[in-house]
Every structure is written in structure tokens, then in C-alpha cells.
């Protein structure tokens, strides 16, 4: 399987760890990641036995994928089954508002992915009649067929220091799941 570099805390059985340059996505993936700034150092873990992964005592959430695509910030990615393909995709203004850059990591295929969050993530279902709005600082990942749009509530009041406190929001429409954490990263939107 693939895991974030240095995230192994213990294992039993036989294991071999090998750094995968460029996220194991080949030369093209490597170049894309370098250009997009969505850098992610992963290692390949091979062998049999049990391997434990952890990172700074963050909460870990398991996501099962059945042929669909998970979009996750590379900083929240911990480990994935080897059968899953990882890549990068463009996120547009949402990424900019989170301070995480304009690109995000995608994981595709069949298998399990472990993602990290600050506090246990809440999984929210989005369907046609229930669109969801999320604070960029609390967003961790999403999967399924979702359209995201960026909402800005910046008005002249914000400039006067009388803003609504939630000036930037991401709106998800369509059909899928969104993972949010009970904490907000520091974002440029955080204090507006």
C-alpha cells in the first residue's frame, strides 16, 4: 500500500518501506505535482503482517472506495491501498481560499483510504434536494459526483469590520459525501 512518508509507528511481520518519488505517479505525476505545488511524499509498504500508521495524533478516518473518486487535501492524506490511483486535480477558487493552493489530490479505484482530520470528521451526504455549504477551513475531503462552487459574502461591511464571520464558503451540489472536521484551519477567510 501507499502511505505518507514517516507515518509508520509500528509493525509486526515482514515489511519493506520504499520511498516513492513523485507519489508513485510516474514522471508525469511527478512533474504535475512539482508544478502544482500539491506535493506529497509517499512510501510504498510491502510485506505481510500488521502495520500501524499515525501522524501527530490526528484523528484518522477510513474511507472505502468502490470505483469512485475521492478528493482529499494532500496534507490530510495518510495511506491508501496500493490498488488505488492517486493524482492531482484543479480545484479553483476553493483551494485558494483554504490556503492550500489551487490543486488537490485525487484517489481513485477500489479499496480503502485513510485520511486525517483534526478531531473525528463528520460525513455529510449531499443530494439533489440537500445542497451543503461548508467552511473552507473545516473541509477535509469529498467524494462522489459533486459540483462545488465558491461563495463569497464579502461586502462593504466586511471592510468595516462588521462582516458575517463566514465570508468565504464552498457550496456542494449533486450527489456525494463531504468530510468536515470539527476545527478550522487558519485560512485567509478565518478572520474575516
Amino acid at each position, binding site marked *: 500500500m501507499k502511505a505518507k512518508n514517516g507515518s509508520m509507528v509500528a509493525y509486526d511481520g515482514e515489511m519493506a518501506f520504499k520511498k516513492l518519488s513523485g507519489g508513485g505517479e510516474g514522471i508525469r505525476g511527478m512533474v504535475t505535482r512539482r508544478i502544482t505545488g500539491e506535493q506529497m511524499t509517499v512510501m510504498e509498504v510491502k510485506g505481510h503482517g500488521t502495520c500501524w500508521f499515525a501522524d501527530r495524533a490526528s*484523528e484518522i*478516518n*477510513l*474511507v472505502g472506495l468502490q470505483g469512485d473518486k475521492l478528493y482529499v487535501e494532500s496534507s490530510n492524506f495518510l495511506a491508501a491501498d496500493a490498488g488505488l490511483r492517486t493524482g492531482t486535480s484543479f480545484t479553483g477558487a476553493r483551494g485558494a481560499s483554504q490556503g492550500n493552493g489551487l490543486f488537490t489530490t485525487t484517489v481513485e479505484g477500489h479499496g480503502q483510504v485513510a485520511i486525517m482530520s*483534526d*478531531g*473525528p470528521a*463528520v*460525513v*455529510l*451526504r449531499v*443530494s439533489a434536494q*440537500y*445542497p*451543503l*455549504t*461548508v*467552511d473552507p*477551513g*473545516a473541509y477535509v475531503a469529498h467524494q462522489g459526483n459533486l459540483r462545488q462552487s465558491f461563495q463569497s*459574502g464579502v461586502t462593504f*461591511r466586511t471592510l*468595516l*469590520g*462588521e*462582516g*458575517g*464571520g*463566514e465570508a468565504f464558503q464552498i457550496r456542494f451540489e449533486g450527489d456525494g*459525501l*463531504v468530510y*468536515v*472536521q*470539527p*476545527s*478550522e484551519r487558519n485560512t485567509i477567510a*478565518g*478572520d474575516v
Partner: protein
Amino acid sequence: MSTVHHDPATLPADDNVNPYTFCVELKGSQWFLQKGKMIAYYGTIDFNGIGHGRLDRLVRTSFHSPLHASDWVVAEGSGKMLLADRAFDVNSYDLEDGNLTIRSGNLLAFQPSLALKQSIVPGFLTLIGTGKFVAASNGPVVFMEPPIRVDPQALVGWADCPSPCHHYDHGYMTGLLGGLRAMTGLGGASGEEHQFEFVGAGTVLLQSSEALMPEQATGVTPQQAGVPGGGASGAPGGRSGVPGLPGQLGDLQRRFGL
């Protein structure tokens, strides 16, 4: 841990989703919340700064710390809204025609049926009336009955009982040696020589850790004689858990007759 997928039908109304996330149901109603504590919502909800003109009446009836207003917003609309605060434990509490004083950094949100006022105790806020509020704490909250002495760092708030006073372990504090010990920390400071003391009928809320949550500004009180924290003179009465540096110095000086 199996993952539960929430949607508006399965999310609880005005209850916890997990120990760190609270869900508020709005049906055309309003809630006050601290800026930036909303993490997600379903439905149509507007967030407006307290200074918003339309909210003037609401602010007049239930918001009484004028200079603290810029940290708060009013959520208005219909739908379900999730609140969380830096992955701290959150809980809701019901007040029935009561009053509760809480550390300013711990209060997350409250219903406008409650009135928020600055407490006379600096750094604390008082809620008066009937309604629900949401507060964060570092570790689950424990409820205690007075008479009780509590560690300053563990105190979250108190309800219905008179204001606390400082308590110092007497044997430790008296005499020249005691003074020296308190000043230098030499000779075994247990770190528990100073407590807050509560007496009378009521409830004291404690958090199960001594890590304080970062304090929120409560706004300045009018600069008037007799207003704690409002006077221009520097720090009247050491207000926090450090066994008072300025106070102690005075004590020692007095002991030496300086």
C-alpha cells in the same frame, strides 16, 4: 469505527453529532455565534455581523457588551448548521430563568432568548434568561455543587451562585519563610496554593483538564471608579492563577517593613 453518513434528516436537532460537533436547527429563528465557529450547513442561512442595521433591535434586547460585538455574528434562516471549535469538546446547556457566568473563550453560541452581558469578573461573560447555549471545553465538563474550591485553570463557569473569591492556603502563605517561598518557588511549591472558592447554592462547571482555552476579548468596560478592570490603574487584584506576582511583592515588602 464505521462511518455514519449524515444528511439533514438524520442530523440531530440542537444536539451533539459527536463530542466535538454540535448541530443547531434553525426554523426561521436566530442564534448568536462566535465568528468562525460554523463548519458547515444545510439549507439557507445568513450570517450577519452584529452591527447589521436590521439586527439592531435584537442586539438591544439580548446583547449587552457593546464593545465585544465585533466577535459575534447572528445566524438567521432555516436549515441545520454544524458548530465546532478547534476540535474541543462541545456541549449544550439549558438555562431556565437562570444566570450563568462563563469564561469568555468557552462560549460558542446561544439563543437570543438569553441575554449576554459582561461579567463584573474580568474575562467572563454572564448569560441571563431562558434558553440554550453551546460551550466548548478542554475535555468533558464536570458539574459540582458548592461549597467547593477549584483550580483556576479548570474553571469553566458557574451558575446561580454568588461570585467566587480567591482562596490561599494559609499555612503556606504566612510568615517570612512563606513569603520567600511564594516569591521564589523554592522549598516546594505544589502549584495548588491558590484556588477559587465558591459558596452558596448553585452549580460550578469544571473542565477535566487544566489547559485553558484561549481567551476572547470581552470588550473594555467603562473607565470608571469602582468598575473592576475598568479603572486606569494597573491590574487591581491579581486576577489569574499565577499566585499573584504584584500582590506577593507588596506582601513581602510589607513584611520587611519597606
